[in-house]
Each structure stands twice: as structure tokens, then as C-alpha cells.
């Protein structure tokens, strides 16, 4: 469904990403792991169209979408849930959802809202509350709900568990699993490797701007390979 190969992205003279390859498919959670500054967020943003890559290709649903602007990518069925939730605090839960349905046909919006409420009953109870009154976990679910409003085939998620209480991390990530089980492809960057691995199918490890390891979540849970890949030779030599 999504095939990213040999992506190169730079900010001016700084080469942030040089050689990231990733893939994602329907109904599966692909977890992207890596240290801070490894280029995970940059890769995600380049895939979603917020940054023009210098080279490499992004193929989605059989079409080359490399460098396509972000607002057009959404119409193709790929949506980014940005880092830090980014919901509109003064607007109500339902108004936030409606904004998410911008690209959807007008007649289908009410139905989509109901579907989101079914998936996240907690949002239904709070539909007329300003989003700023929700807890962190509820806000993350609202961010998911907003993304779902565009009827995506693939969701890109940047650190959905960031800043959440441990119990909420579980709930948020299990809702990610549920969305994948419903057939949506998920490409997720997550710092919380342990929690992320519990729901992931496939894992890609990015280090210093390149993909250095890919495998199944089972292999990754095994540990050694991944520590090696994430932290480099030095970590193991020292140990």
C-alpha cells in the first residue's frame, strides 16, 4: 500500500534523512523506532507532503506521490496525525471532527461522526465540550477521530503516546490496534518502544537518517538485534 524507498530529505544544508525505506500495508501496524533526531518525524512529514524530498520515492496505492502537497495527499487516502495531538482547544469535540471531514463528501459527514463516536464512546459523551477540557488521552483519541473523518486507507502517526499517563498509553495504543484490525494501514513513530511493540506487526529501525533494520515485531521483541541497530556497535561493545 505504501512503499517508501531511499528517501533523502534536508533542511537547507542539514541532511536530516538520507536513505529511509519503509513500507506499510492495510490492516497492519508498522512501527518506526529510533533515537531522537534519527529522522523519524522528518520522514513521516516528507511522506505526508509537508516536505519535498531531495530524492527517493513515495508510492501509495500504486501511484507515485513523491512531493505531492499535503492537502492533496489527504484526498488520496493518507492522513497524518501530527505530533502533540494538535487539536483545536476552543472548538468543541464535534467541531474538531467536522474539520477532519473537510475532504469527505458532505452527505457522509454525519454518518462518519457517528462511526467515530462508536469507536470512541468517550468522545460521544463529550461531543459539545470544548476540546481543551479533555484529558491528554481523550485529546489523542479526538486527533485519531479527526483523522478517521477523512476515511483514510493509511494513517501516519507521530508519537501518539507522547506525554500520556501510562494507563492512557495502553488505551491509546490499543485503539490504534483496533483501527488497524478494521483494515486501516498504520505507520507509527513511537518513542515508547515497549508499548509500541505490543501492538505492532512490523518494525523498522531508523538511525542517523537511514533505515538500518526491518523485521517483524516478534523478531524485534527478541531484543538484541534491535538494541544493536538502534544504538550502534558501541552500545554492545561497551556492555
Amino acid at each position: 500500500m505504501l512503499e517508501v524507498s531511499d528517501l533523502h530529505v534536508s533542511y537547507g544544508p542539514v541532511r536530516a534523512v538520507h536513505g529511509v525505506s519503509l513500507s506499510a500495508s492495510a490492516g497492519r501496524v508498522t512501527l518506526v523506532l529510533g533515537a531522537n533526531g534519527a529522522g523519524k518525524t522528518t520522514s513521516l512529514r516528507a511522506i505526508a507532503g509537508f516536505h519535498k524530498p531531495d530524492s527517493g520515492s513515495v508510492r501509495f496505492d500504486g501511484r507515485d506521490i513523491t512531493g505531492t502537497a499535503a492537502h492533496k495527499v489527504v484526498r488520496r487516502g493518507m492522513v497524518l496525525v501530527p505530533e502533540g495531538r494538535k487539536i483545536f482547544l476552543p472548538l468543541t469535540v464535534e467541531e474538531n471532527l467536522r474539520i477532519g471531514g473537510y475532504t469527505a463528501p458532505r452527505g457522509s459527514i454525519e454518518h462518519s461522526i457517528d462511526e467515530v463516536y462508536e469507536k470512541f464512546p468517550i468522545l460521544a459523551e463529550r461531543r459539545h465540550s470544548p476540546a481543551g477540557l479533555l484529558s491528554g488521552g481523550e485529546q489523542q483519541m479526538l486527533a485519531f477521530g479527526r483523522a478517521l473523518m477523512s476515511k483514510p486507507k493509511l494513517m501516519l502517526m507521530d508519537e501518539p503516546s507522547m506525554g500520556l499517563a501510562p494507563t492512557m498509553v495502553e488505551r491509546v495504543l490499543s485503539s490504534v490496534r483496533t483501527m488497524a484490525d478494521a483494515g486501516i494501514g498504520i505507520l507509527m513513530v513511537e518513542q515508547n518502544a515497549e508499548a509500541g511493540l505490543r501492538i505492532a506487526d512490523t518494525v523498522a529501525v531508523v538511525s542517523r537518517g537511514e533505515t538500518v533494520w526491518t523485521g517483524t515485531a516478534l523478531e524485534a521483541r527478541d531484543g538484541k538485534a534491535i538494541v544493536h541497530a538502534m544504538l550502534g556497535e558501541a552500545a554492545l561493545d561497551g556492555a
Partner: protein
Amino acid sequence: MSDWYSMNVVLIQTTLTTLLLALSIQVPIRFGVFSFAGVGAFGIGGYTAAIAMVHLGWTTWPSVALGAVISGIVVFALGLLVQRLTGLYMGMATIAFTLIISVLAVNGGELTGGAGGLYGALGEIDTGHILAILAVVVAVLVWTETKGMGRRIDTVREDPELANSVGIDVVKYRLASFALSGVIGGLAGGITTLLRSTITPAEVNFHLVIVALTAIIVGGARSWLGAFIGAVIFVWLPTMISFVQEWEKVVYGFIVAVAAIYLPNGVLGVVKDLIHRFRTRQERARLAVLQEKG
């Protein structure tokens, strides 16, 4: 009523044209574009209307319309050039645009009347005409402030990146705000000029930016109603505080400073905040109960 009206007709009309000018600055700000090009549009609209009347012998309303169309097109073209700029840079670029318009007017020879300006462009305009035009403008603005369109514009302003990520073409919205600002500013300029029958380069200047901005800051930047409140305050204030004589500007400055510090969302914002605070308190209590259960 009619006595009061005929005594104050100039002030009333000035309030309405000031409101148009303030709206031409408020619109882009509401779209998250810190543009003062509306004041340049005021100059283009004013000069175009005067030129159409004086040199081409056109009648009042075709002249005003031509001014609005041309200033809309010019400001839209400016938008194509500068729409990527943000914050202060956008402010600087658009103020420069406004100053260029007055330089062009000074050097326009016979066409613009040079530094002395153009005279004898007296249009047939009464308060009813201005109100009718304002009604159309306000109707369009209300549409951009409410429901889906309003929320989308809020999104474009508050978080352009998020707007992009839900599929909104932010550049398109920003450009639309330039065009709208150009048309409204052009209307303000055309009507003001034909009411006074003259326009000079000195009138199209930085002080108009200040007039428009103060009206919006004191009245409220989020809605046309705020601009209206601001326009009323600043057009009528001088007559009410005429007893302070030369201290008038000081009182002016004081009001703006107080508004900027204590009323960040203007007079209108204060009223809205009170309503919002009341609703939020109720909702918070309800959620506290829910969260305890859940």
C-alpha cells in the same frame, strides 16, 4: 431623529467608510495573514474611482466598482508574490506596498494630479448607498465567520499545518483573503474619495494603517462586529472629548494601550469571553462527573 441625522451625516458616513477600511485589514488578519495591503487597496480604489470620474467622465457607481475590481486584482497579485511570508515580514512587505502606492500617486503626473492630488470627483452618494454596500460586504464576512467556513478559516489561522493535514489548501485561503481585502479596501477608498470629491497622496499613508488597526484592536479582531465597535469609537470619540483639545492624541493612545493590555480580544471579545466562561464552567462540572465515573 432626522435632525440628529442631518447634523451628524458626515460622522455617520465616515463611520461607515472607516468600518470598510478596518474590515479590509481585519479580513486577512482573521485568515492568519498579517497584511496591511487593504490600505494600499484604499489608495488604488480611491485613485481609480477619481480617475474614472475626472478623466473618463464615468458616473459614480461604475467608478467605485472599477476601483474595487482593480484593487482586488492588484492585491491578489501582491498576494501571489508575498503569501509565503509570515508575521512581521508580511507586515513589512504589505506596508511597503502601501507606501509604493502613494509614491506612484505623487509621480503619476496628470493622471493622478501629482502631489496635489485629484479634485472635482464628486460622486452622488448618500448614506443609504453606503449601507447597502456594507450590507453585502458584511453578509459575505458573516458567511466566512460562521459554520464550516468559519471553523476552516480558524484552522487556517491558528494552525496552517494542521489545516493542511486535514486537506485544506491553505495557500488558496490565504490568497482569497488578499483578494477580499483588496476589494473591500478598494470600496472604502472609492467611496471615501467620491464623498469628499478629492484624493491626495498624503491621505494614502501610514496613518490609515493606524486608524484601521486601532479600530480592530479596540473593537475586536475576530468579527466584523468588533471592527464596527472600533469604528464607532474612533470616529465619534474626537467629538465627545473635544474639551481636551490638543490632548486628544494622548487620550487616543491611552485607550489603545489599555485595550491592548486588558482587552486582547477587544470590546467584543470581553462580551464573548463572559458568555464562554459561563458555558465552560457548566461543561467542566459535567465532565468532572463523567471523568469520576469513567
